[in-house]
């Protein structure tokens, strides 16, 4: 913040210089006035970098350090011992954690598949530019703007076996008894209940990115294809799909990262249950860190998760750039 203050100070005192500068040629003027471009660049970027270092990077390094200890945040007086890679070993050989990873993979895979399919279809339809399409687009976007925790909590109400609206509607269309199935209570259905809510909430995001992609395709390409008498279907597969692919991949990247971190929506909906069928890695991590207070162990877990996301995302971005270059 100190840098910023000097920047402002120089701003107030520079009026006489400005007046003098008006008489000098611009190239000279630029050199003598105020701070150099380089100094300004660092004053402008500095505070942001500082904040990120203090609240993101320093904690990350601390977490790495803690991950090699047996520290417990609820027992401060206990002596902290360095245990080497023991936490990592225990996590990677723990079969329960692999179950959580599987739950996360199921959630990731199906939310991405459904959101890409529905999102792309919606974008394609909206791009037909029917009357009032922007208002309807906004209405579709509403769920993703809302608080996942508050909405997730309310979906719990919709999923109630006897009184819930979701069960009632499903029962109405399938003829089943609305109290015969429990979306949140049954081991088979609970993983799907979180997929449904996440898809409801985040399909609009994929839709918007696809829409931007579709709108970026210039009309003349289709016009040229029309002149060449390419069929609509052919145009769709040789123009629309290839041109929208980078956008779709980007949407998948964003949703993938977000859903790998998923916490608020699911913790409110199922709390990880029944058993641990919907206990995604983030929820499991929260249990270890803030309920069992195994801080060292949880730190190692956090690092493993971070490295996984970061590694997968980097590989993915490389692939994305290759697609873009084509």
């Amino acid at each position, binding site marked *: 913040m100190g840098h910023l203050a000097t920047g402002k100070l*120089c*701003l107030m005192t520079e009026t006489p210089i*400005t007046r003098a500068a008006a008489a000098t040629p*611009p190239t000279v003027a630029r050199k003598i006035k*105020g701070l150099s471009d380089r100094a*300004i*660049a660092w004053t402008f*970027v500095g*505070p*942001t970098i500082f*904040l990120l270092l*203090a*609240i*993101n990077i*320093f*904690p*990350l390094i*601390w977490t790495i350090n*803690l991950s090699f200890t047996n520290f417990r*945040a609820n027992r401060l007086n206990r002596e902290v011992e360095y245990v080497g890679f023991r936490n990592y070993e225990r996590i990677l050989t723990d079969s329960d954690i692999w179950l959580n990873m599987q739950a996360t993979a199921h959630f990731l895979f199906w939310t991405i598949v459904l959101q890409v399919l*529905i999102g792309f279809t919606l974008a394609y*339809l*909206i791009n*037909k530019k029917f009357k009032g399409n*922007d208002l*309807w687009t*906004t209405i*579709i976007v*509403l769920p993703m*703007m*809302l*608080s*996942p*925790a*508050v*909405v997730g*909590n*309310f979906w719990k*109400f*919709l999923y*109630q076996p006897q009184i819930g*609206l979701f069960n*009632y509607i499903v029962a109405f269309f399938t003829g089943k008894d609305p109290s015969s199935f429990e979306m949140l209570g049954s081991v088979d259905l609970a993983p799907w209940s979180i997929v449904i809510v996440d898809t*409801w909430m985040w399909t609009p995001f994929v839709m*918007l*990115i696809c829409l931007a*992609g579709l709108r970026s395709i210039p009309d003349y390409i*289709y*016009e040229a294809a029309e002149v060449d008498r390419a069929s609509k279907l052919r145009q769709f597969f040789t123009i629309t799909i290839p041109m929208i692919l980078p956008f779709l991949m980007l*949407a998948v990247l*964003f949703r993938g990262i977000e859903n790998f*971190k998923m*916490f608020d929506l699911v913790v409110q909906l199922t709390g990880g249950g029944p058993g641990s069928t919907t206990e995604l*890695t983030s929820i499991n991590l929260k249990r270890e*860190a803030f309920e069992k207070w195994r*801080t060292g162990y*949880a730190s190692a877990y*956090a690092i493993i998760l*971070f490295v996984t996301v970061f590694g997968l*995302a980097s590989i993915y971005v490389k692939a994305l750039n290759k697609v873009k270059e084509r």
Partner: protein
Amino acid sequence: MSSFSVTEPSKRSKWFAGSLVILYALITMIPLAWIMLTGFKSPADAISYPPKVFFEPTLEGYVNLFTTRTRQTDEFLAANPPETWYEEIVRQYDMVIAGPSKFGERFLNSVIIGFGSTFLSIFLGTLAAYAFSRFKIPLADDLLFFILSTRMMPPIAVAIPIFLMYRQLGLSDTHLGMILLYTAVNISLAVWLLKGFIDEIPREYEEAALIDGYTRFQAFYKVVLPQAATGIASTAIFCLIFAWNEYAFAVLLTSGTAQTAPPFIPTIIGVGGLDWPAVAAGATIFLLPVMIFTVALRKHLLRGITFGAVRK
């Protein structure tokens, strides 16, 4: 669209596309409409089977949301007749209002932390975005990627050391602590979005201003800032919405003074479990501002979402 064009969809396909999209939109609205309806139901109507679409509306949920109540003896109730309409609602259950609930406070916390962190992220983010857009910064791409990569960390992973750090610094459960934390999370998005908006402003404007004798600072705030105003505004809305909706940090790092509404609303307990009408009332009050915002500012917002994600 009066002239004929081969890329203009036919009337029939427009009609078909329109009706499918509207159908989807209506289905997607059902849960939100249900939240708002439930807020006006009595507890008995809320849990009736089959679910009731038509019912006698009552403000019970809202009264329960804003008050705490206690049961009283018959003699006390007979001696003190209800004075206000909300007392009267509570009396049908032989209860009296004991005082205000925590909801007002939690809502105010959401407002303070939301606006505070948005202001800070926009202030710092605009400066950084301008520098990244206009100056040659060594390793700029790496720095930008670093800034973005901080978003890849699961909030819980960050929360462990933050929890310990804040405990040492006395920042846990304070407004300042939450504002700084949300700013740190938001700033990466802000820098990326704003860089996109500032990149779009032609450099020639500033160069002309510099030749006219403006300093870099003057060129920045007299030429670039006004041009970037819409971009800044839509970025601000995103930051505000994030801070408004955030749950994971709030539930782990705050418990009293600085707790925001999202961790509070799901804990509203009535007689025998969650008080669904009160929960729905709280959710409505909390969600409605965002919904109105989104519809009112749709042009800038929709552009903003894709702008951040899609840059060439």
